[in-house]
């Protein structure tokens, strides 16, 4: 018998997401992904100074903070012909990579872990066994001490005994599908707390160069933070030494704590490599952090280490034997299931023809069920050559693996061997979670082994320029200019497009990772990736609809960022009115 299940709010994500399900027995038969927030920033951008755009774009999301800012800078610089100096590019890489790695760590420990880790069970664990467990899974993390495990157990026990469960109130702690041994739960809770301390510490890299995090400051044409080894008011050896320490901390935590934890936990839940398979198509333009101003198929003047050995490409039908070239012209967006309308009744348009008009047709609030109607979400549904596509860490892993990126192949092959899975099984809930850990490790290595050392080498050689002043004055810009960017941010490939008329923004567009993943059905009825991960094969488990633990695992494996997903900026070619900034 078909039963309807609603998960709203989906918690431990960014933004507001509602999942509607139809189940039969203990499996999911149908699923709808509904983004329930819209902010309309596209209209707000019109007529603004393009040098301000990064600051507006940054506010699209405070979780992947910096991602939209850098995509905005690259698009504007592409339009006006500005080339940030090499050192400015490396500084941006340090800021965005540290933020993206932090984002992955917070996702794993603070947003996703409670799907797998039973906090309540941690209170019953033997602290010595937790230390032994950590050693057994190859975790060399310095926090794996008996004293620490005892203290954490006592903290958890204290909270449970007090009856005031704080953020753990209402968790599904009696659900039979929490399968970790007690000591693994305790170790994971200890690492949850360690990760809080870690993210607070290493993100100071953002503050050194951007003044603050979240929402660090950036600058069209470079960075505002001057660098000079022999000046007291600039970034100098004092900060370089600190950054060096935080970069090392980052690699240490990711390699000794995060990766072993992800391997161990997904090893216990190995069946999740056969659950949650989604759209078998993937796009990636580089390693995490790669930021192209303009065509990603052409090498930029100062290529970033995040582009080395990784060609932009597309993997189709889970076939990792071939990488197809990435052609942005094959992207189109459907509004078949989204509360927007296209003129003439069209439901899918390519970027050169597009438009955006809000047209809410859903029920008035409050409501109980959305998806009886064709339209049920604020997220559009992007398609590549008509196909739904996954973007994100798994996509980078798949495209990197298929394209022969050496470190990706090595890490994936090692992990697959240890876990006894095939690379094809990575298209799964477990695969997305594992891929994120691998993605973080590769990024931490690139940050530590390439980006930071290259920055320091540049300083040694006296390369201190961080700003291209030649294109700062709008008088140097063409009367009409257009540009775009493609950036690999934490959740996948992000593109910004901008058109500038008479020094002001006339068009601003974005193609956002969570839109690719969270969008709903297209006019052909093809589900979006969240939806097909839950209902693509009719076998996704849901044992107890009152405690939807299993679908939460699958949704969280995508790391939803719904403020990003909802088209804050029009991805289509809609011309926005130019107004004069007063």
């Amino acid at each position, binding site marked *: 018998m078909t039963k309807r299940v609603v*998960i*709203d*709010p*989906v*918690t*431990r994500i*960014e933004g507001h997401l509602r999942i509607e399900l139809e189940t039969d027995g203990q499996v999911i038969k149908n699923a709808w992904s509904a983004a*329930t*927030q*819209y*902010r*309309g*920033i596209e*209209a*707000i951008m019109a007529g*603004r*100074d393009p*040098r301000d755009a990064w600051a*507006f774009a940054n*506010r*699209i999301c*405070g*979780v992947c903070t910096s991602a939209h800012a850098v995509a905005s800078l690259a698009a504007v610089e592409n339009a006006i012909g500005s080339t940030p100096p090499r050192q400015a590019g490396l500084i941006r890489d340090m800021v965005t990579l540290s933020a993206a790695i932090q984002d992955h760590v917070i996702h794993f420990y603070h*947003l996703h872990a409670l799907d797998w880790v039973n906090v309540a069970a941690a209170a019953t664990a033997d602290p010595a066994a937790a230390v032994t467990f950590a050693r057994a899974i190859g975790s060399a993390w310095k926090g794996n001490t008996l004293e620490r495990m005892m203290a954490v157990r*006592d*903290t958890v026990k204290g909270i449970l005994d*007090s009856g*005031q469960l*704080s*953020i753990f*109130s*209402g968790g599904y702690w009696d659900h039979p599908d929490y399968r970790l041994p007690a000591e693994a739960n305790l170790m994971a809770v200890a690492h949850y707390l360690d990760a*809080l301390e870690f*993210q*607070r510490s290493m*993100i*100071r890299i953002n*503050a*050194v160069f951007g*003044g*603050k*995090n*979240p*929402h660090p400051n950036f*600058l069209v*044409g470079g960075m*505002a*933070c*001057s660098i*000079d080894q022999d000046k*007291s008011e*600039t970034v100098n050896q004092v900060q370089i030494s600190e950054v060096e320490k935080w970069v090392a901390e980052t690699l240490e935590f990711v390699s000794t704590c995060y990766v072993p934890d992800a391997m161990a936990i997904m090893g216990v839940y190995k069946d999740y490599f056969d659950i949650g398979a989604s759209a078998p198509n993937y796009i990636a333009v580089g390693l995490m952090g790669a930021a192209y101003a303009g065509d990603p198929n052409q090498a930029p003047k100062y290529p970033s280490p995040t582009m080395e050995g990784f060609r932009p490409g597309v993997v189709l039908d889970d076939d990792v034997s071939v990488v197809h070239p990435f052609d942005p012209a094959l992207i189109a967006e459907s509004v078949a299931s989204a509360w927007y309308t296209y003129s003439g009744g069209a439901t899918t348009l390519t970027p050169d023809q597009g438009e955006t008009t*809000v047209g809410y047709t859903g029920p*008035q*609030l*409050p*409501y109980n069920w959305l998806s009886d109607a064709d339209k049920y979400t604020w997220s559009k549904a992007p398609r590549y050559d008509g196909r739904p596509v996954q973007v994100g860490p798994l996509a980078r892993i798949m495209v990197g693996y298929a394209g022969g990126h050496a470190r990706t192949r090595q890490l994936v092959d090692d992990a697959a061997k240890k876990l006894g899975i095939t690379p094809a099984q990575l298209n799964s809930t477990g695969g997305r979670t594992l891929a994120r850990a691998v993605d973080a490790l590769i990024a931490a290595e690139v940050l530590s082994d390439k980006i930071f050392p290259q920055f320091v080498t540049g300083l040694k050689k006296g390369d201190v320029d*961080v700003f291209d*002043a030649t294109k700062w004055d709008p008088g140097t810009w063409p009367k009409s200019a257009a540009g775009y960017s493609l950036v690999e941010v934490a959740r996948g490939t992000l593109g910004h497009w901008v058109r500038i008329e008479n020094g002001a923004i006339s068009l601003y567009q974005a193609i956002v990772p969570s839109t690719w993943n969270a969008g709903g059905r297209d006019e052909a009825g093809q589900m979006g990736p969240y939806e097909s991960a839950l209902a693509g094969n009719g076998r996704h488990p849901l044992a107890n609809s009152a405690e*939807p633990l299993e679908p939460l695992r699958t949704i969280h494996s995508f790391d939803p960022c719904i403020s990003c997903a909802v088209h804050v900026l029009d991805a289509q070619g809609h011309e926005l009115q130019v107004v004069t900034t007063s």
Partner: protein
Amino acid sequence: MTYALDGWQEPTLAENLAKAGVSRRDFLKFCGGLAAAFAAGGAGLSLAARAFGADPTAAPAATPTAEDIAGKLGALTKPVVVWLQLQECTGCVESALRSGGTTVEDLVLNLLSVNYNEAIMAAAGDAANRVLGNANAEPHILVVNGSVPLKDNGIYCAIGGESAETVLKNAAKNASAILAVGACAVWGSVQASRPNPTGAVGVDQIIKDKPVVNVAGCPPIGEVITATIAYLLTHDEPPKTDAQGRPLFAYEQRIHDSCPRRPHFDAGQFVRTFDDDGARGGWGLFHLGCKGPSTVSACPVIQWNQHTSWPIGAGHPCIGCTEKEFFDRFTPFYRELPNVPGFGVEGTAEKVGLGLVAAAVAGVGIHAGVTALRLAASKTTTAAEPLAALGDEAPASEPAAATESESE
């Protein structure tokens, strides 16, 4: 005699004290000390005395006994917190995660019971909604991130099938303190900027029957967010605020007043282009559009990310994110503040702030620009509000006798 409480492990303070080895007799002695302090009087103590059981209608001499206080204090449980996220970007929760002062783990595990926060709570869907309903039913501290979109019956932000406005009103009903944290909750921020497509407004435009503390900024400094909550716990009352509801402990002075680059400003030493010699010398950013002269914030004092740096310290002009409508009033960001001839004259700089603020919030108490006039029209009506979430009882009905005068 001191005792170290090792976290909050038992339901009540009395039990926690007992666990820490504090005898009932010592506890009563401590409470007796408090009773003596209340008896000694002082306007500041009258509120606390009432909170601990003194009859508010009785003569001022009536003070609680040690037994009264012990009973009240001993039964204290951790304050319940409902932490909403409405129309926003989660940057404010992220900022709180960065706090190196009172940390999030302190707040969540030791000091408070944060029963509802969508970003970090374990429960989802129906289970989360039940937790919220239960927390809303009892006295609690309400923290709000995000704005409320009013246009088109609120369809632009729905949570659990309800509008953001309904979610906020339900949570505000039994709240004993309300903190609007971040520019979105304070005034709507980026989505409320011209032309405000979704009709986004701040919390105090919806909740008008209770004071709202406005922790301004996009986002606010993490330490300021957590300190505002810690202030409630320490002082039993919300922090004193300026005319816009911003806590004075973090929003008392303009950035310009405590900016380390101020001597360069006064000496007429300005950066003319990013990364020029002046930039490398840490000179004033005024001509590159710095909004420090018109922005109230303790950024230069507290700084960001455990005192690592701050926007001006990292060479970028202040964009004024603690001020209302900064995405409209302060843009283009790189255009210098208007009507500032030359440099070095404090009176001129004062006029800048005064002029801007007066233009933008005509009729509202002026604060931002004028250090000399600080505290004018100070919004201190919160002083008399009991904090039920902290164990206070609402007075039967009483005019706000403790409200401070409107201006000095």
